[in-house]
């Protein structure tokens, strides 16, 4: 039987990979994918805790998270497309409208 720490380790790894992707990818779509990974790491955590504590709240919460993730990706991609239309690029380095 695999214990809780193994699940948590997996989740941490996935989260770190996602964070790495968000920080290093130059492509906006790649950044979105990284965010997806981070969210799913959270989901793994939730499910693992739910399973080992015998409480279903975490499972229900995961369903909500997945739904929200989908919506978030939809909005994110829409923004990426909008940016592409205006700036003709999705390279994150070029998108510095917030520059001080």
């Amino acid at each position, binding site marked *: 039987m695999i214990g809780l720490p193994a699940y948590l380790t997996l989740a941490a790894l996935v989260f770190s990979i996602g*964070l790495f992707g*968000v*920080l290093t990818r130059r492509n906006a779509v790649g*950044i979105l994918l990284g965010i997806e990974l981070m969210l799913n790491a959270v989901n793994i955590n939730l499910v693992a805790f739910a399973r080992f504590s015998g409480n279903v709240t975490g499972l229900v919460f995961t369903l909500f998270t997945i739904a929200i993730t989908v919506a978030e990706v939809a909005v994110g991609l829409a923004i990426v497309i909008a940016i592409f239309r205006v700036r003709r690029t999705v390279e*994150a*380095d070029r*998108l*510095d*409208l*917030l*520059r*001080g």
Partner: protein
Amino acid sequence: MAPSVGLPLAVLALPFVAFVLLAVVAPLRRAGRLAGLVSILAVGLAFAAALIVWARGLVVEATWTWLPADGGPIASVGLLVDSLTQAMLVLVTLVSLLVQIYSLAYLHDEPPASLGRYYTYQSLFAFSMLGLVLAPGFLQMFMFWELVGLCSYLLIGYWYERPAAARAAVKAFWITKLGDVGFIIGIVLLWSATGTFEFTELFEKAQAVSGLPLIMFLIYLGAVGKSAQFPLHVWLPDAMEGPTPVSALIHAATMVTAGVFMVTRAEPLFALVPAVLTLIAWVGAFTALLAATMACVEGDIKRVLAYSTVSQLGYMMAAAGAGAAQAGFLHLLTHGLFKALLFLAAGAVIHAVGTNDIFRMGGLFRAMPHTAIVFIVGTLALAGVPPLAGFFSKEAVLGGVWEAHLSGPFLMLALTALLTAFYMFRVVFITFFGRAHAAGHPHEAPWLMRAPLWILALLTILVGLRLAASGVEGHEEAPGWLAPLSVGLALVGFLLAWAMYQRGAIAPARVAAVLGPLDFMARRRYGLDALYAGLYRGIMLGFSRLIGWIDRYLVDGLVNVLSALTLRGGARLRGIQSGQAQDYVYGVAFGVLLLIVWAQLWR
């Protein structure tokens, strides 16, 4: 309200109503002559009320609480009418009325709006002066004292487009303020010692006050500034930049006598401090002599009269200092009449000739006999020739000073009497007789200007005759040789002026050469103006420059350094904001990591 309070209150309120009306209703003020008529009507009614007060001999003391406090009011306002006030009320309203009528013709060429402004100031001045005269306490007196000073400033600077007038106004204001600082400190010290501003209460309590000499000296300083005593007399000659009627009203008959009036009013207080009284007498006599010598070399007709005013104020102060305040006050009243007369007559001459310089006049007797006659009447009164008003009051002053055993001041005043006759007849001979130098055809002044002149001249004669008939109070005690002496001195002065400027027997230049250093100093006003200018430039401007340097380089520098640091810091910090979301996320992640590490270590 009792009628006895109502009448003096009406005297005070009428000019105030006129002032408010003119100040608030702009179209009325801009109407010019109409504004003048409103002002004249108000002061005329006030004059009538003042006459009734005087004729009935009303004695009123009424106070109203102004600043209530536990254990009695801190300050109150009110009216104090006694024989002193009655006479002053009549003098102030009379001269105000005549001057305002005279101004209507004198300032005929002024634009209407400007004329309205003039009458607004005039009404305010009449109100302030009457309030000063009616004040029952030092606090109220001080407030009206300052108001009078403000009006003086406004009226000297009436032609404010002229730089000389603006400068003279500021000079008059500042120099009188110098004395007023002492005045207010003295009042407050007196209040803290006795707890009251009211004269009647002060007279009872003052004996117990310690340090009274200092307090009274400080209060006297106010009179030094206002009544142009040495060494603060320098503003009065410069104040002649104002219109001539203003000089007649404010700088001869009323405002400048406020200091003498104050000393007379507070005489029971001054009587407690003989040292200060002696100082007042000496300073007064010295001022009289100093100003008289300067009048002898002055070529500007108004400035001669101004120095003469300073000199006569010295007389009044000397009398007050000698303990003969009543004599000083009598001289104040008679001097108010004939000096206003002289100024108004001089104004008529200036109006006709268009210059102030007596050496560019001459032979005007034939062109303007009315003005010449009233001017000579005023001159005779000022020189102290019986039976004109000036003779009796001047003799009373001399007698009072003699009785006080102040031989130094007495000699100075006697010499001043000689000089007074000399410089006045000098002006008379140069201006009205001799060869004509005036350009164009001088003409007699319009009747609106002549009427006040004749009224004042007649009053000067009538008051003199009245004094001759009734005798002056305390006159009997004066030594018998005093009257011949003072007439003799006047005669010597007259003969000297006649010999020098009419007959030509003595060349003025030779006299000037004999009295070389004195002539030199008098022409330079004894260097006092230069001294003040130097002090002003050296100390005031130097100090201002120092402060300016500190402000510009230290205070502003600090602010500039701070702002520069902020700007540079901002420029540095903005480099962090790359505008790229990834960098920010990086920062957040790093921060979270740090927090986790810190939380682990802390635990």
